[in-house]
């Protein structure tokens, strides 16, 4: 490469090295000069880097989809080789370690109280449910008693006033019924 200004052809020969950061300091200076003056080559660089990034991102590491730990470890441990004896020692120690930690677990106070709370939770849910059901039954019975009372009041009112035959009795019974509760059809006394 001469010391002179790069042509586009000269630059294109260096494009790959340039985007891979493989150019010398001297080349880098010449390239910089050329890119300052040449928009086409500047775009070529942008696109070359774009393509690089796209490939990297397409084939790059995503979510973990394999776990070979146990397979590899058991293969390493189960082979017949010189290091078997030391392997077994290590195996034993890890077994002892895991047994120690396992033993500790049942005496964990937090865990114990948590399990008690778990039992208590179930019990309290059952009690609450029973209470709600009972309350609902009692309430609805009281309600229907109220309704019955109201209905007989309407009936007696209507009977008392049927002789005078007010034109608006139907409307008045309706509004009374509405005020008591929905869905009560007033008895039609006109028949």
């Amino acid at each position, binding site marked *: 490469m001469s010391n002179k200004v790069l042509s586009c052809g000269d630059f294109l020969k260096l494009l*790959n090295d340039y985007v891979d950061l*493989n150019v010398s300091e001297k080349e880098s200076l010449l390239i910089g000069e050329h890119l300052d003056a040449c928009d086409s080559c500047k775009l070529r660089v942008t696109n070359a880097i774009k393509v690089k990034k796209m*490939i990297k*991102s*397409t084939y790059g590491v995503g979510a973990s989809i394999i776990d*070979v730990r146990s397979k*590899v*470890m058991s293969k390493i*441990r189960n082979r017949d080789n010189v290091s078997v004896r030391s392997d077994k020692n*290590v195996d034993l120690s890890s077994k002892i370690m895991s047994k120690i930690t396992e033993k500790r677990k049942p005496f964990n106070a937090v865990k114990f109280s948590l399990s008690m709370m778990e039992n208590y939770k179930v019990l309290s849910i059952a009690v609450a449910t029973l209470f709600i059901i009972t309350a609902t039954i009692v309430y609805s019975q009281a309600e229907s008693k109220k309704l019955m009372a109201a209905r007989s009041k309407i009936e007696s009112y209507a009977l008392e006033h049927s002789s005078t035959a007010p034109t608006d009795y139907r409307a008045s019974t309706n509004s009374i019924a509405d005020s008591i509760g929905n869905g009560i059809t007033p008895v039609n006394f006109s028949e």
Partner: protein
Amino acid sequence: MKTDEKIIERVLAGDISKFEMLIEKYQTQIFYVAMNISRNKDTAEDIVQDAFIKAFDKLQTLNERAHFFPWLKRITINLALNNYDKNKRIVDVEVEDSEVSFFDRLPDDSDPESIMINDELKRYVRLYVDALPERLRRVIIMREVEDLSYEEISEILNIPLGTVRSRLFNARQVVKDRLIKQGLTDSLVSRTAN
């Protein structure tokens, strides 16, 4: 978190269970390295296992313990390449023509770092890269995805440096041309250097 050096030290001292930490740490990355060469999930998983076992066996030969990962990556690439040559399946990927101009959806930003690559674009990139002749595909994957230097690629594939350059040039050119055909407006970019 323990450094690789410390973990390796423990493993070499006889506590082989510590090796599991290295597997956990690197298996995903190594899986992708294997997957990108073998192009088969099951094969890749086997390669990952073999790579870790080989690494375990050769752990004593690793001088720079801090460089465990690049070393493991090299082992994986070599295993994947050998495996590929053994099985030599011809994967015929058809390159479909689509009217969709996905290049238009790229933000027209001069800062390439800000490029957000959507799934559809990735599908096309994969299509075009996978459609490359295997000798070109390997080089571009090793360079762009595994970040290996020209020298490292030359060494692993046992080809001259000049061949790495020309293959990389051709691979990039083909992929770029395909992407341009899909909608990049500036045709200047598709012209070859020669």
